[in-house]
């Protein structure tokens, strides 16, 4: 809990970071974790609420007040144990989670919340530095085999939990490297990829087998990887005692307006992974750059933000970011406490340079010689939740590269069809989260977790799903499970 009066005495501290000008020049992370002393003071601000709303706000129900107190008392070893008890990959969430815990923090009502994310970041980085993160292989093997399809955060969390409880786990990844969107999607400057490699090493030592370039169901593979070999779904079901589908929700929302077929209009997920590959040192990466162009990013969410950051680093001439919905209120406090509020958020990528605008609908793309040169858009007025075009507000903007970052509508259907998995009304793999029979799909011994089951969501939700699904699979295989909820 820290100090009882800590929140009255100490201010919240943001992690030290490079200036936008400096960091635009490279693709490395630019946030430094808190020093031990600073983390101690941030931990002191926690009030150890009798009802810890932060723990509810956190999708993996991190034991936040506990490790805040431990950090305040500088017991870093106990802190990492507490942290690992609920979160398999704190180094991911400590960097890229939007921190719903901080929105739920009681201080957020009328103050700055406790710097929970920065404390989590400090704990895990310190733990790795001290060598406290070791593989935890199971003492006894169960003799059961589980296939996990997809090596994103859901698949990895599920695999790690299952391996630690004694099952033989094989993770199939359609791309050439492990990580799912963590690797190919999230820019390197948000999270460097050696962090994933480090965890994969740990999981290998725990007995997890990884197979890359293996695709189930013929889904389109990440931009640039044409080497994936198919996995026969029938053999999968025959060879493994359980199959977990954690293939994500990668089907992007399209914008079928006139001019869509012009060159230079790309889905975000066809653009961002290219840069991940370049940073990883791959040769022969497709030549799609924002350098010197007027970039228009359509979609005001996190993916759009990533496009902005990447385009700036490419040296784009200008970057604009349009959003369909109206501008959310610009408030510091949480008007919807303890839930996630809709309020204006300015990401680090926005700070690097962007022209943002809201309530804009794209009407058409204008091209020249088959390539896009401008977009025509119109302003909207939102009344009672319904948009209406404002007459006479049409405008044109030069655009040499348009990046569509309007969200993901669901998983690619081919994998679900291949395994005979029923879908819910939104097109996701249908499975409940009930305590009994949770995460099980309509296909026998096939489970679903993460975005594939929920639709597009957060990394932290994926970790939760992976953990919960692992427990459901363990119960299915063994009759009972000791894995935590």
């Amino acid at each position, binding site marked *: 809990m820290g100090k009882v009066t800590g929140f009255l005495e*100490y201010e919240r501290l943001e992690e*030290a970071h*490079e200036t936008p000008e400096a960091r635009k020049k490279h693709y490395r992370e630019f946030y430094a974790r808190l*020093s031990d002393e600073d983390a101690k*003071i941030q931990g002191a601000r926690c009030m150890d609420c*009798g009802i810890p709303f932060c723990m509810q706000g956190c999708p993996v129900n991190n034991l936040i007040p506990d490790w805040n107190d431990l950090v305040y008392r500088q017991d870093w070893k106990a802190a990492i144990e507490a942290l690992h008890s609920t979160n398999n990959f704190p180094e991911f969430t400590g960097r890229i989670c939007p921190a719903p815990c901080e929105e739920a923090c*009681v201080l957020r009502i009328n103050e700055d919340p406790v710097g929970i994310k920065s404390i989590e970041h400090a704990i895990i980085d310190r733990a790795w530095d001290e060598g406290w993160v070791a593989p935890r292989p199971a003492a006894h093997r169960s003799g059961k085999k589980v296939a996990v399809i997809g090596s994103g955060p859901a698949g990895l969390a599920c695999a790690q939990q299952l391996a630690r409880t004694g099952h033989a786990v094989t993770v199939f990844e359609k791309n050439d490297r492990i990580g799912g969107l963590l690797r190919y999607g999230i820019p390197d400057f948000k999270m460097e990829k050696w962090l994933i490699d480090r965890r994969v090493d740990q999981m290998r030592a725990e007995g997890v087998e990884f197979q890359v370039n293996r695709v189930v169901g013929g889904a389109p593979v990440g931009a640039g990887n044409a080497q994936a070999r198919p996995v026969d779904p029938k053999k999968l079901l025959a060879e493994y005692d359980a199959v977990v589908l954690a293939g994500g929700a990668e089907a992007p929302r399209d914008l079928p307006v006139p001019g869509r077929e012009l060159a230079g209009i790309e889905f975000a997920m066809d653009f961002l992974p290219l840069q991940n590959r370049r940073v990883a040192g791959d040769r022969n990466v497709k030549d799609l750059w924002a350098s010197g162009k007027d970039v228009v990013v359509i979609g005001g969410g996190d993916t759009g933000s990533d496009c902005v950051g990447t385009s700036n680093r490419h040296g784009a001439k200008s970057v604009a970011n349009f959003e369909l919905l109206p501008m959310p209120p610009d408030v510091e406090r949480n008007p919807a406490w303890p839930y996630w509020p809709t309020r204006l958020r300015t990401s680090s990528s926005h700070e690097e340079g962007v022209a943002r605008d809201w309530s804009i609908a794209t009407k058409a793309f204008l091209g020249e010689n088959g390539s896009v040169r401008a977009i025509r858009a119109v302003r909207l007025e939102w009344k009672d939740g319904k948009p209406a075009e404002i007459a006479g507000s049409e405008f044109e903007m030069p655009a040499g590269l348009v990046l569509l970052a309007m969200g993901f509508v669901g998983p690619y259907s081919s994998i679900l069809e291949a395994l005979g998995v029923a879908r819910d009304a939104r097109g996701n793999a249908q499975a409940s989260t009930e305590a009994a029979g949770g995460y099980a799909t309509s296909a026998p011994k096939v489970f679903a977790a993460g975005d594939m089951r929920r639709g597009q969501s957060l990394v932290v939700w994926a970790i939760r799903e992976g953990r919960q699904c692992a427990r459901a699979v363990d119960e299915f295989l063994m009759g009972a499970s000791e894995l935590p909820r």
Partner: protein
Amino acid sequence: MKFSCDSCGKKYATADDPAPGRVYKIKCKACGHLIVVKASAGGAPAVPHHEPPTPPPPAPPEIPLEIGAPEREVPPPWPNEMRARSAEPTAHVAMPAPEEQTPQPGDGGYVDLFSDTGASPLSSILFAGIPWEIGLAETQQTLVLNDLRSRIWVQTDGQLKTGRDVVIGAILGADEFGFSTAPLVVEGCIMMRKCHLNTCPVGIATQDPVLRRKFEGKPEHVVNYFFFVAEEARELMAGLGVRTMNELIGHTELLDMRKGVEHWKAKGLDFSRVFKMPRMPADVARFHCETQDHGLAKALDNRLIELAAPALERGEKVAIEMPIRNINRTVGTMLSGRIAARYGHEGLPDETIHLRFAGSAGQSLGAFLARGVWIDLIGDTNDYCGKGLSGGRISVQPSPKFRGEPTENIITGNVVLYGAIAGEAYFRGVAGERFAVRNSGAGAVVEGVGDHGCEYMTGGTVVVLGGTGRNFAAGMSGGIAYVLDQQGEFARRCNAAMVELEPLLAEAEQPARLARELWHLGEADEAIVRRLIERHVRFTGSRRGAEVLERWREYRPRFVKVFPKEYRRALGELAAAQRKVAA
């Protein structure tokens, strides 16, 4: 690293120097300016450190005493057998419902919104208590069966939130309804359950001005909420075909029980006794409809006041002699009220009104007795003698016909001198338990006490010329007790948590052994004790007291001085503060 806001100058510090090229960004708390700090600025880390000021204790609520101030039409405060709470069938304290608030002074008074057990961590209160419905039903049934219901306000409490709760409560028998958690939440409480630490983040459970500024509730919010509750209650009542609360109270036939008890969760539970209403004749009331006659007109004090008129009006000395019986309770209190009304706390000169009583006095003899009144009793008393003593004098001695040994016989009851603040009391005999509990300034001599003597005492002087029970001085934080420890047993019987036991020093010795600033009342202990015992002998004819004084040289070393540690510390601090002022 230290830095300050370049807009308003507010200072900040962090423990680390950022590496070159790295920045910190903080939004200034005072003015909202975004401070951007780069590179190191040296200097030792210093975090702004201001302890929030210790909040002053809340002023105790004004509880008007009907007995002392008969002009005001106010029902007596709880606890009192006139106010039965729904929590239990008996008319006293226990509060089984976990979320019940502390009781209110009732109509004519204010509604005080506490947040007591409701704010405890859930782990502390889970499964504590029983539902209010059970206590209320039992209360209603018992009172109706005994034809007492008409004179009593029955109030229920315990997580009441809606009009439906009110209607069900009324049907089960309640006249009044207490709300605590719900209106608090309306005012902004988020049930964060750290009330006991004075860190309430929404400024409710605190008097610290820094935290109070976060308080966003308004009286209008609470008023609005209660309007909703009342409207819903009205709707439900109309649905039941009932216009007034009195048509509702106790009418359990209006509850549709079957649907409730047929629910699968209720299988196996039998609520028939909760909803049963005793069959009584129609003229037996089921709700409050009568004002109790407390019989004050018959109180002895009325006569005393009459007879003491010359003293009250002109300060003339008056002596009144009369018999006293145990049905005469709080004798002297109404009289003291009259004195206080006229002369304030200062009262009248000592012994202006000399009341000579003979017999067995009822409870609370001399409660809140004002200065100028001397209750001189030959006989004995019940409990609460001298409670709240406010400057008067009480002396009690056994009847001359009594043949026993006073140091071995009980002459007064329990909780004598409860919360006394000034005055003196002399008992030639043994007292019951909790003698001088919460005494904060009166002087008293007694010849033996039961258990828990001087419990929670905070001031005043007590001399015990005989044995004590166990747990003497529990929670004692002020004042001094001098106990004659002939058997050498006292140390075993005393609760040493808050006090130190010292010998009673001779007056000549004391300056050398104890710093002057730590002397009780600024006098030598020996002088205090002798003086009190002398008065004890004078006012009660105590033979024990006389013997002790006669053989003082023998007895003095057998006295133990009970010196509370807190008192010692406070005396020291007081002296230090005075020296500082003088310097």
